[in-house]
């Protein structure tokens, strides 16, 4: 049980953040460039707006069928000689992945918010594995011993001088605080290079999954996910069950809308992964484990998602594509970053905290911090009504939750 001073600590934490001028500066720059990038991306590809409406319909239909879609995807993945799992809880997911990983292994990880949600890296480290975050932002966060402050840009709050200092320490080579950002990126590349090829396991998430083919769509720019999911002999993917949609064409639409609202006109890479690596080039005999992984495991995490889907006003939280746009429009986030949040941030984070993670105290803190100003809804491609959810959540907090009468 947590201490009674939770709310006080939380308040202290966000006020500390609000008085941090460097944080504010980093955020105000990020917000400005995000807005102009999204504007640009939507102007170049104006069909995205209509496509977002289609995606909303796809999500509305898919969310109530999450489990069925997961079973469908697992069946196809296993036909293709991969392995699929449904984890009812975060702990189940951790155990499945820990069993697959074993101990004393070298693990390279792509960024996965679902991994953050269940504390995957920490768990694997506890089990005696060496785990490397390979997304640059996550890598910085990992080495700082900090936690992500934005779902897409985890190290949004760290200025370059701090990165230089950190890298100098971690890599044992001096990187001057006034170095070019390109030099810092190159240093990270060099440091991580051999990890990809020495790794026993590569771990990723997925932005969306097509149930009919079991295909994971993974959007990225850095190329670290390509390496992490193709160089090691084993690829393990952890996917929130809400990411499933029925068809490949649905999944494509979800992807395009996601990256565009995430301020990318065109991302450098979209990987489509449906099974382990294979070849039939010698006598047409299918053999697994060519240049890519020999093993492919997909864990679909429920972890409270099907519970959330049963709340009429709150289920819309599951439509979230994790484009991160709402965060850039939140006036509180603009001064506090991820301190206003839990596993997920800002207003919508309260819903995840309350129903998915069942941490009502954290949820209340976030719910009372939301202004209900509604600018996030204005930005959201899924038109998720955060103020409506927050008021509903406050109602559950104040008047009790009939759905949870069993408590």
């Amino acid at each position, binding site marked *: 049980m*947590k201490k*009674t*001073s*939770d*709310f*006080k600590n939380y*308040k202290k934490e*966000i*006020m500390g953040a*609000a008085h941090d001028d460097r944080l504010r500066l980093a955020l105000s720059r990020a917000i400005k460039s995000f*807005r102009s990038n999204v504007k640009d991306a939507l102007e170049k590809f104006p069909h995205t707006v209509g496509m977002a409406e289609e995606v909303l319909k796809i999500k509305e239909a898919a969310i109530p069928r999450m489990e069925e879609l997961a079973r469908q995807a697992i069946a196809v993945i296993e036909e293709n000689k991969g392995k699929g799992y449904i984890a009812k809880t975060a702990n189940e997911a951790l155990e499945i992945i820990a069993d697959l990983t074993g101990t004393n292994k070298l693990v390279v990880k792509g960024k996965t918010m679902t991994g953050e949600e269940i504390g995957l890296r920490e768990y694997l480290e506890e089990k005696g594995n060496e785990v490397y975050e390979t997304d640059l932002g996550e890598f910085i966060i990992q080495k700082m011993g900090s936690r992500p402050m934005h779902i897409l840009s985890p190290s949004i709050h760290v200025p370059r001088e701090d990165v230089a200092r950190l890298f100098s320490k971690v890599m044992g080579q001096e990187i001057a605080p006034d170095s070019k950002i390109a030099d810092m990126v190159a240093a990270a590349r060099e440091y991580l290079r051999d990890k990809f090829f020495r790794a026993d396991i590569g771990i990723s998430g997925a932005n969306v999954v097509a149930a009919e083919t079991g295909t994971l769509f993974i959007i990225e720019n850095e190329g670290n996910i390509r390496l992490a999911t193709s160089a090691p002999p084993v690829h393990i993917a952890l996917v929130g069950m809400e990411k499933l949609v029925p068809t490949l064409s649905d999944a494509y639409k979800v992807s395009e809308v996601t990256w565009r609202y995430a301020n990318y006109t065109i991302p450098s890479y979209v990987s489509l992964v449906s099974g382990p690596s294979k070849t039939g080039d010698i006598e047409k005999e299918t053999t697994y484990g060519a240049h890519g992984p020999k093993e492919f495991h997909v864990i679909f995490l429920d972890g409270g998602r099907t519970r959330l889907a049963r709340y009429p006003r709150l289920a819309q939280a599951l439509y979230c594509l994790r484009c991160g746009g709402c965060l850039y*429009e939140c*006036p*509180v986030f*603009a*001064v*506090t970053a991820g301190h206003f949040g839990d596993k997920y941030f800002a207003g919508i984070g309260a819903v995840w905290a309350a129903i998915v993670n069942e941490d*009502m*105290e954290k949820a*209340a*803190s976030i719910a*009372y*911090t*939301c*202004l*209900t*100003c*509604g*600018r996030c*809804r*204005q930005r959201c491609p899924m038109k998720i009504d955060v103020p409506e959810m927050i*008021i*509903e*959540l*406050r*109602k*559950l*907090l*104040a*008047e*009790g939750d009939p759905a949870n009468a069993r*408590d």
Partner: protein
Amino acid sequence: MPPGLTYLADNIITSQNILGVTKEQSARWAQKLDIPRQAETIFFAGCGYQFSPQLERLMSLARGVDKSVIGAELPMRFARFQKKLGLNLPGIYSNVLSLNILPGREELKPLEAAIKVLRNLGIQPGYLAEEEPCCGAPLNHAGLQTKFAENARQAYRTLKSHGVKKIIGIVPYCTHAISKLFPLYVDGYDLEVRHFLEVVVEKIPSLKLKFPRKVKVTYHDPCQLVRYLSLVEEPRRILTSIENIELVEPDWTRGEWATCCGGGGGFETVFPELSQVLAVNRASELLETGAEIIVTHCPGCIMQLKDGLRELKVEGVEVLDLSQVVAMAMET
């Protein structure tokens, strides 16, 4: 900055005393206006701009609710939970409510101005004065929907008993509550609710409006008006129809994209300090336009923006309610 930099502090001090106000002092802002009590169309003044015995009633209602929350009526779970968090809901309410009670002399103006504007447009609304029910919006906002629903039904009965058919609202919170939320909780809700801006904008083409001096003004959209009631073009059409007014707006943060002033429904009492940071941020965005007057249309936003300007130590920039600006433009 003109009338008093200690404005907000005074509000809070004064309002705490105001809670003991007598009924004779109620609705004083309207006394010299001689507004009829009985009419099919009434002006709904709300709590934000005025202080009146209704607030006393709201206070006791809110206190009653809080007692019941902490007491037996609601699950023990919540009471435990509240204690754990260190959230003091009764304290929050009384603060919210007292913050909303703006002292007479300063804040009578927007309401008087609004009545004057309506009359100049040939509209003679009634006003229920101390009989005006409270919309109870803070209850909804706090998640106390059951109490909000009870209050809504009571308020509806009161309005009907006075023969009210149409309402012209002005406070964003109240107007949203009586137009969008009441129908969710009151069976057969049949009151036609329009916001002051909608009424005024219709008459704009037939008016000749001139502000007493040449000024650059910017407009701050209250969240409830712009994103809950979709009143985006209305205030702009009104302002740009006034001679001598040049409307200058921030690049991005205008209309539906306007930044909240930081006064979101009680936020300022839970996080007073953070709320002020947000007020300063919003005031800064608006100041970048080079405007000499920040016009808005919400008692909460006015308070926050004035505070923001005060923190920024900005002089020579005023915050005015849109109703005041229109009334001034009718005088010349």
